[in-house]
């Protein structure tokens, strides 16, 4: 395990593309989270121009709701796509540079190769979740002060949910990269599917059941980004009649985990049978 991680770390340690994309991810993440409140209130202002009774401005970064809201904004497609693209590049590079062949020739088993990639997914998801949790804590502190009683009740469930989202989404990306073997093709297909095809399909499936969040759509990417279904904004509950979740449901987690598990199974089978 340590040996495999050490090898993976050598492969990325001086790889600029990896660090640039990771940096961009954190920049987009921070920008998204910090701008979310501003953008919501901008919308509220617009609505208020046409409403006789003005809506109050919302605050979303106080404890304990900050955990849920940060998890929600960190799981939107446009942010989550970064770690996925990083993962696609890391796996397709191995095919492009034929280093997967060389690794096997040199005495790595095919299983070890796949395990090393899954380990790097696990490690990246851990680091990214810890960074997000630290960020959420700081944002929460700066918005709530020290008078709050309930700091952490939503911390563990929503951060764990985000961790599962990251792992599953990166496994999807890994699957796509492994099957395509070509960096450009894999990124194009994955991005197209995640950002365009699935939202369109989702829209048509969802439309008849508008605002009924008990209907799960089983689309792979959707199940990942919907672990945190809605941001915790009390006003939403009043206006739209949403039942706000106070935890991430176990059933909801099992859906993307099942997808990811099936994909990993396929990857192992293909690796065993196909020529390198």
């Amino acid at each position, binding site marked *: 395990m340590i*040996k495999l991680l*050490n*090898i993976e770390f*050598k*492969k990325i*340690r*001086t*790889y*600029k*593309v990896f660090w640039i994309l990771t940096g961009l991810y954190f920049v987009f993440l921070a920008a998204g989270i910090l701008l979310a409140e501003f953008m919501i209130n901008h919308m509220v202002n617009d609505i208020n121009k046409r409403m006789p009774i003005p809506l109050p401005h919302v605050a979303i970064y106080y404890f304990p709701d900050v955990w849920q809201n940060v998890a929600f904004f960190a799981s939107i497609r446009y942010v989550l796509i970064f770690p996925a693209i990083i993962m696609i590049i890391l796996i397709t*590079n191995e095919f492009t*540079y*034929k*280093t997967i*062949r*060389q*690794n*096997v*020739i*040199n*005495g*790595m*088993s*095919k299983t*070890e190769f796949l395990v090393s990639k899954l380990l790097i997914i696990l490690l990246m998801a851990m680091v990214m979740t810890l960074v997000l949790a630290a960020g959420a804590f700081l944002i929460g502190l700066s918005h709530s002060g020290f008078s709050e009683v309930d700091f952490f009740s939503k911390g563990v469930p929503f951060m764990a949910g985000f961790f599962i989202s990251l792992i599953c989404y990166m496994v999807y990306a890994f699957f796509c990269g492994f099957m395509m073997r070509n960096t450009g093709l894999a990124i194009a297909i994955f991005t197209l599917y995640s950002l365009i095809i699935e939202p369109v399909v989702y829209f048509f499936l969802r439309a008849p059941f508008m605002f009924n969040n008990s209907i799960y759509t089983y689309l792979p990417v959707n199940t990942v980004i919907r672990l945190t279904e809605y941001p915790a904004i009390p006003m939403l509950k009043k206006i739209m009649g949403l039942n706000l979740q106070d935890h991430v449901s176990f059933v909801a987690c099992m859906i993307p985990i099942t997808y990811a598990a099936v994909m990993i199974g396929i990857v192992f089978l293909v690796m*065993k*049978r196909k*020529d*390198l």
Partner: protein
Amino acid sequence: MEIILNVENLSKSFGKIKAVNQLSFEVRKGQVYGILGPNGSGKTTTLSMLLDLIPPDKGEFSWFGQPPSKESRKRIGSVIESPNFFPYLDAVTNLEIVADIKDKPYDDIPEVLQLSGLYERRFSKFRTYSFGMRQRLAVASALLGKPEVLILDEPTNGLDPQGIAQIREIISLVASRGTTILLASHLLDEVQKICNYVLVLRKGIMLFSGNVKEVLAVSDFIELSSSDMQGLIAAVREFPGFSSFNETDGLIQVHFSKVVNTAEINTFLYQKGILLSHLVDKKRSLEQHFLELLQDNP
């Protein structure tokens, strides 16, 4: 001698094409074993199967008397087709990854870099290397951890004469240390210069295998002429080991099934009362033999 590699009835098809067909051979410790064949004869497919890159359709092979495993591959250094390294990593990091996989210490890295003449450029990224340097780094990585077997697939392909000489020098040095070498090549003189055993492959089928020197000896023929051609032909037929002859322009070319020397023949014919006016021992080059083997087996 200890058997390093044993291959039995190895077969692999790609669609309708039989890339490797019922191939069997064995490589013993210390041999420099050449697999010779034109492009597309199944050399790389064979080596890829032996290194677990391609699962064979049929047949078996064993390394060091054991079924193939990642542990056996760690005892083998290989260069298959092109050098495969991360272009954005320097030579040292690329070699460290190889050493990590092989469970070998990093101590060998400076030595193999020096041997391949890349020590000065060891912190340059792989993508900045010239074609020849890349090939030498591949050989350097194959030599990491002092492997018991070295597998080289067309190691001098596409190199300039200087590059070819450098690679061959390294191979000779490694062979002189007693490392078993398995070399695939389409170049006859390369096999002739480097190898002591050869297997000739065409369209996935083994045409011939044996000691390189024996190949040359068996391919001998002797040219004879005499004023009494009828008597000569009659007499030479009685020579032990005679197999066939062709008559052309007042000469006969006589083939034998074993190694003969001209003195023996001369004495034999003299005793039969035949005086020779022409006696030449013609050794065909391996190249001629190779081309004939390919032609004889359409």
